[in-house]
């Protein structure tokens, strides 16, 4: 079953009246539930733009060419209000960014529980979930550290804990290993792979690193605002057991 499906996704950035950039020129994409997909392509090919649309941070352009379609687990999300999109981001998606993007004044634990808070899980429950998520990424002993007191790799693991804490259906990661050395990247990738395997969480990540791409189930290649190659699900990984734990947004 496709968890994310997009059709006719376009995005034009308007810099001035004359100067526009067509970042996405009509993309059709389908991502299966439980898949771990890499998006690769040259700089400026529209990878981040596509991620923002899939992550409901931006809406696809509505009014040139055929109408855009975007479905999340079958539900039409192409034209939702800001509030509705925010709610989906909070409860059903997890984000990991290239430069970690932790809130600098908050501790590791507070950064993680912030996501619980936005998903409507506050207080003790949130704290507990936060500690568990930090334990999953091996940072329970850094819970009270500020981002500035953590290494880059550790910061990115905190960001992954934050993305995972609500057990979202999809994790979207834009160059999550872009700022890390190869050992740290391997750790981060292993973590994402682990959650994908163990909890059936769908992972979509953008990368420039072909090793990272090879570790994924499938590599989608973009060029010049279009998808050039949808990739093949590697036989070996496709056969790997995907434990279909139903994605639960709010733990009981």
């Amino acid at each position, binding site marked *: 079953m496709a968890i994310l499906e997009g059709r006719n996704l376009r995005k034009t950035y308007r810099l001035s009246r004359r100067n526009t950039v067509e970042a996405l020129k009509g993309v059709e994409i389908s991502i299966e539930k439980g898949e771990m997909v890499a998006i690769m392509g040259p700089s400026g090919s529209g990878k981040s733009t596509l991620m923002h649309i899939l992550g409901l*941070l931006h809406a696809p352009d509505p009014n040139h060419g055929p109408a855009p379609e975007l479905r999340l687990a079958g539900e039409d999300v192409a034209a939702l209000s800001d509030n509705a999109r*925010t709610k989906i981001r909070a409860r059903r*998606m997890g984000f990991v960014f290239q430069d970690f*993007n932790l*809130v600098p004044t908050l501790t590791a634990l507070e950064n993680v529980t*912030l996501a619980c808070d936005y998903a409507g899980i506050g207080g003790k429950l949130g704290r507990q979930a936060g500690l568990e998520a930090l334990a999953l990424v091996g940072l329970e002993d850094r819970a009270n550290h500020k981002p500035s007191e953590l290494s880059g790799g550790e910061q990115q693991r905190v960001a992954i804990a934050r993305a995972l804490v609500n057990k979202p259906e999809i994790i979207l990661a834009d160059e999550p290993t872009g700022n890390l050395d190869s050992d740290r990247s391997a750790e981060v990738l292993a973590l994402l792979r682990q959650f994908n395997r163990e909890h059936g969480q769908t992972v979509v990540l953008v990368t420039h690193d072909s090793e990272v791409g090879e570790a994924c189930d499938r590599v989608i290649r973009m060029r010049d605002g279009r998808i050039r190659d949808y990739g093949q699900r590697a036989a070996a990984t496709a056969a790997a057991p995907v434990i279909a734990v139903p994605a639960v947004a709010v733990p009981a």
Partner: protein
Amino acid sequence: MRLVRDLGRRKLRSTLTITGIMIGIMALVVFGSMANKIDALVKGGSEYYKDKVTVSAKGGTMGLGGVLSTRMVDQIETLDGVDVALASTMMMVSDDASAVSMGIPPMIVGSIAGSDKGRETFKLNYASGRALTPQDEGSNVVVLGSDLSKQLKAKVGGTVTLRGETFQVVGILEPTLTAPDNEAAVPLAAAQQLLIKTLPALIADKLNVNEIATGLVVYPKPGVDPQKVADEIKAAIAGVTPMTGKDFDKQIGAATSVLSAILIGIGLISLLVGGLSVINTMAMSVAERTREIGIKRAIGASRWRIRREIVIESAVIGLIGGLLGLTLGFLITALGNDAGRDSGTILFDLTFGTALSSVTFATILGAVAGFIPAWHASRLDPVAALRYE
């Protein structure tokens, strides 16, 4: 806790903003307390004059001015609407103008105890000692108002010197927040003796000291409009000016309400400046945190959450500034009143209402000032905000 830490992060700017609010609230508290004092004075006067007509010599007011004759009492009591009339003699405790900086100067008020025949409704409470009695006529005894007793450092049983004469203190009043606080009540005869000494010899020689007064207090019959009585008096007796409670409100109330408005206006203007400073601080703090706001929006903070966060933060700035300003204002008014006591000028009346409304006002001001930056922050595009350096 987080919030306090967030404020701490921008220590200098927050401190300056809080200082701005603090100064504004301090001004509001100090000027507000001054306005309270004036209001209480006026309200007390209004209450006192409401049910009576006060007669002064032509050109005078409130029972002060030229010399009248006590014989007018009988003449006025024959008038239709008049129930009771009595003579009173008033003068300043000191002619030294420097002692009269603000409010009402300390006054000596002489009248025969009980001559109102129970008509006076303005209640006086005694902190110590007793009220004057008709038997006190002929002796030099005095009942002092609360502020005046402090100024003269007087106690019941002790003596004070008023215009060169020694008086025995028989009673001290509780504070009324209005005119009696600064009055020395003496028997009529004693006041007449003091008054005659203030008059030029040429005039004084022609007067009978037992018949002089500066004012007459006239109580209308129940149900009779004081204005009608005032008109009757004007028609019947030449050379006097009657004043009703309405006249008092018109003359004094109008003047003091302008003064109060000016005082509070000054406080509000300083607060406006404080409020602009909050807007500035919060706008800069929003700009500084653009990226953080982008992160929060991306991981699911609603616009409402972002707004709430910023509005609460600036309300806390307002609250802290308000509390500090109130503390400072309290110190200033307390010290000012202490210093003024010696000269008999109590300038400030810091009421609970003034304190509470200043702090509430500061908090609301902070919140409102935070709203513009908060709105801006909540409308940021999360993706653009994330890219912001």
